[in-house]
């Protein structure tokens, strides 16, 4: 979707807060939210659906609220949509309207178990498909001019632009369908664009921008 999340090349967001003390969390609630997002996922959820739910946050909240706060809101929305909790419960700040929903918590995981799960969570998104890749390394390709209302990973700034395939990544789960719960693999390529192809002020620049793009985003140039 052409949402507020698609920030590449947008202007007016001011200087970067370059000073950072290196701490992973600066407030306790940020760590709590990180932990919740790791261990409370609704059945059937995909990473692309979760990302789409975050994109659907109202622009004023998406830009105006702290980062991990937007994760919390994304989690709330997925839990409510999946029936884990209701809007009434959330507005009331307490579970307890439905005793049947209460259960014993899952067993506590230790640090060692969590570290093992992190290691095991090296989830691969590639798989075999019958079709041969349509493009080869070195080939010129042009990206689609338009996106669509759903989740997609072709940013606005790189639409309708010509680049060169510089690597074949394998067939990866296609995010536009994965965000609808459908797992289909599609060939994915790294495509390099001259900065001057993307930005008017980059005329004469030798700089490059590289994106990983799925085959259906691309046509032969």
């Amino acid at each position: 979707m052409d949402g507020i999340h698609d920030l590449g090349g947008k202007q007016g967001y001011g200087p970067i807060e370059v000073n950072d003390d290196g701490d992973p969390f600066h407030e306790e609630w940020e760590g709590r939210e990180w932990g919740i997002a790791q261990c409370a996922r609704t059945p059937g959820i995909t990473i692309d659906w979760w990302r789409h739910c975050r994109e659907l946050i109202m622009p004023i909240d998406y830009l105006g609220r702290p980062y991990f706060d937007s994760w919390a809101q994304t989690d709330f929305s997925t839990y409510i949509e999946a029936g884990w909790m209701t809007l009434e419960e959330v507005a009331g700040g307490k579970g307890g309207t439905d005793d049947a929903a209460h259960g014993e918590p899952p067993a506590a995981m230790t640090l060692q178990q969590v570290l093992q799960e992190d290691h095991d969570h090296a989830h691969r998104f590639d798989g075999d498909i019958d079709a041969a890749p349509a493009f080869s390394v070195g080939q010129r390709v042009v990206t689609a001019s338009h996106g669509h209302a759903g989740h997609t990973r072709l940013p606005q700034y790189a639409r309708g632009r010509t680049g060169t395939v510089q690597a074949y990544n394998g067939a990866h789960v296609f995010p536009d369908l994965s965000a609808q719960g459908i797992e289909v693999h599609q060939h994915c390529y790294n495509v390099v664009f001259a900065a001057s192809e993307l930005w008017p002020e980059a005329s004469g620049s030798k700089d490059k921008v590289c994106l990983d793009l799925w085959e259906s985003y691309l046509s032969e140039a």
Partner: protein
Amino acid sequence: MTDFDAGKIAEIHEHLHSHLPSESALRVKALETLLVDKGLVNPQTIDAWVEAYTEEIGPKRGARVVARAWSDPEYRKRLLEDAPAAIDELGYLGKATAHLKVVENTDTVHNLVVCTLCSCYPFSILGIAPAWYKAAAYRSRAVRDPRGVLAEFGVEIGDEVEVRVWDSTAELRYLVMPQRPAGTEGMSEDELAELVTRNSMIGTDRVLGRE
């Protein structure tokens, strides 16, 4: 069960906008309380995830990978060819690194990593991303004005250097291998790892080992 109903999610966000407490700490407290009350999470497991990403998993892992690649040409070769396997030799494979790629800085190339669409980051080797990486200012400008962004970080890039920006649009994740500083020939891997900054592995730092 997840319904994948985007219209419903948009409606829920409107309700949440009006009905959630405005303080982030209270929102997350409410979320955790509901999940615990309903028996959906164990708060001690949340504690363990916080501890894992505070004490164990962080940019020290990435720095170790870079230092080993600087010290061991065979490791460097394996890392550039198959980064997930190479970091797994050190036990660092994990969240968001199954499709890791290492991109190497040279005298004539500087690499910079961003995620313009969300905040993709190689968690299991760099830990939690710095706030600036996830903020609109960096996400919007890194692809359009990388040299301006680098200047804000105090990094000057000469005209002879090509800047290559990697926008993390798929499940591949990028780790920048900074150049080994001059004058470090006699250093051990441990000493070298101390020189590698987190920013240098994202690309917002370039010349290492300067005071």
